[in-house]
């Protein structure tokens, strides 16, 4: 009775929910750092060995930051599909993360138009009808025109969806109209379908088709499993950062972190489940046209990295995050979040780098500089987006539920 009456009242936010002058400082520093690192890497790397090391590193980091962005979009959509209440105070950050889709579209266009495709993808140079049966049967899908169409479609979907959810949510901050929540909830199931299809084919196009002869029906889900897990880590880090600056100190509590920790844990397990399912079937069937992809990842040094991925992306965090107290203690959760982001990056590295041209494990300076470059721009775009809006959906009808949320 009491709880019901309380939910009818408009909840009062007791903490600072505006970035204020914290935002521009971070945004400017990140932008300058990002532009220098990105510009410098491209200027130096585009002529180096035909640009191949540059574009490989570019693709690793592009896949990494796109996945963080998509993770944000996934989170927002799922909260609306499930009519979730607990997550309202976390949702604005996710909405802003998703809105970085426009930045990833630009970075992606740079890759496609700048020569990344020709440099990394063998199929980019192939034409059907030259006796290459494996390519011939895939040519209706893997050709320049259709690729451009798909590439534009992915980013169009992500930009439209992220803008829609962000803008509608911000509009509600002013009007407080609960119908906006209902509208977003009505549209979210369609968004789920569009999201799942676009993410799957994006992973197929950008990562799987690096080896056009290889195929795995698990591949899209594999990319998604890493994506979602990485976003929860980003959410934990972003919220911790904001709280460290005296923002959202009251609305976001240990309970929300605990739930985000549970989601990280869940996707640690899900990732392993998918990775194993993909590996086991190929290992068991033992057909050369499938096994060579793993063979490339078991060569000199690569075997160690593959093992590191298994231990560091699954066993370690699985045992570390299993206990309730590890997820509720801020220090340990933060450490786990940083670790999982690092492992997700290693996962992208593991997907992109190996190949017939790289029999031994090899890293390049561009792996790091482009991480800083794209990361800088990504952080800049995120803080720019959050600058003029409240950091929580202030008048969401479920805000009270989220503020009172507790795990039992």
């Amino acid at each position, binding site marked *: 009775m*009491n709880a019901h009456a309380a939910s009818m009242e408009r909840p009062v936010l007791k903490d600072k929910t505006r970035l204020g002058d914290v935002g521009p400082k971070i945004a400017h520093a990140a932008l300058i750092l990002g532009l220098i690192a990105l510009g410098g890497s491209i200027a130096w790397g585009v002529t180096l060995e035909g640009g191949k090391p540059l574009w490989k590193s570019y693709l690793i980091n592009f896949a990494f930051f796109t996945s963080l962005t998509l993770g944000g979009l996934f989170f927002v959509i799922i909260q609306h599909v499930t009519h979730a209440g607990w997550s309202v105070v976390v949702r604005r950050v996710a909405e802003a993360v998703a809105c970085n889709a426009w930045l990833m579209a630009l970075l992606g266009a740079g890759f496609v138009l700048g020569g990344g495709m020709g440099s990394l993808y063998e199929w980019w140079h192939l034409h059907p009808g030259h006796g290459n049966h494996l390519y011939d049967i895939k040519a209706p899908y893997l050709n320049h025109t259709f690729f451009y169409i798909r590439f534009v479609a992915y980013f169009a979907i992500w930009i439209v969806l992220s803008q829609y959810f962000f803008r509608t949510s911000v509009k509600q901050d002013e009007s407080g109209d609960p119908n906006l929540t209902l509208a977003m909830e009505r549209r979210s199931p369609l968004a789920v379908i569009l999201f799942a299809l676009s993410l799957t084919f994006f992973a197929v196009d950008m990562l799987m088709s690096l080896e056009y002869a290889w195929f795995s029906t698990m591949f899209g889900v594999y990319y998604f499993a890493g994506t979602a897990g990485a976003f929860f880590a980003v959410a934990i880090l972003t919220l911790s950062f904001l709280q460290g600056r005296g923002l959202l100190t009251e609305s976001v509590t240990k309970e929300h972190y605990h739930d985000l920790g549970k989601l990280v844990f869940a996707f640690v397990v899900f990732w392993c489940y998918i990775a*194993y399912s993909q*590996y*086991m079937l190929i*290992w*068991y069937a*033992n057909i050369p046209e499938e096994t060579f992809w793993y063979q490339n990842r078991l060569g000199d040094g690569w075997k160690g990295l593959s093992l590191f991925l298994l231990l560091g992306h699954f066993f370690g965090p699985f045992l570390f995050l*299993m*206990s*309730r107290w590890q997820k509720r203690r801020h220090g340990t959760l933060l450490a786990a979040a940083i670790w999982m982001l690092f492992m997700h990056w290693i996962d992208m590295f593991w997907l992109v780098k190996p190949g017939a041209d790289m029999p031994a494990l090899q890293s390049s300076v561009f792996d790091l500089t482009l991480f800083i470059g794209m990361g800088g721009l990504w952080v800049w775009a995120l803080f720019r987006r959050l600058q003029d809006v409240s950091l929580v959906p202030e008048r969401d009808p479920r805000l009270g539920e989220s503020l009172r949320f*507790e795990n*039992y």
Partner: protein
Amino acid sequence: MTLSEAGTLTPPGDAPASADAPAYLHGVVAQFETVDDILAAAAKCRDHGFTDWDCHTPFPVHGLDKAMGVRNTVLPWLVFCGGLTGFLTGIGLQYFTNVMEYPFVISGKPMASWPIYVPVVFELTVLFSALTTFFGMWGMNGLPQLHHPLFFSERFKRASDDKFFVSVMADDPKFDAAQTTTFLESIGATHVDRLEE
């Protein structure tokens, strides 16, 4: 009316034998009217230092475990050990059968191939964890229990309807029928029933 074997009539309501025996006191149960009352009472009972006591509510009351000072259960550790046992059993069972007891080459794979162990290891880890959780929870709660002294109180039936109860059992070192009753009344109980056989 029942006719005894001796042919004499026993009047109804006259319970045999037990009437003369002294009633055995199992503890007391106190009734509270609201959620706020039971939360306050639980905190006071906790501070009073009772050890063999419990709260009974018609629905889950959030924060009650904190008010009661309930310590964390060791069940997760048991479950972890159960899971680990399942994990090792899965590996051991397959290694023993595939490598030691009946070595047989299947589709050219090595005898000890970890990828094929995973499904069984996974299932046994889950199974052993689940069984440990289930039986551990029953065991640690002293279940199954077909009867409990609380049911001697008629009023206690409303614990499944609209009233809140605190029970203190006679085994508690701090228990004293008169004093405990006074204490419970002083912290807001509206009725205190003796749990007598």
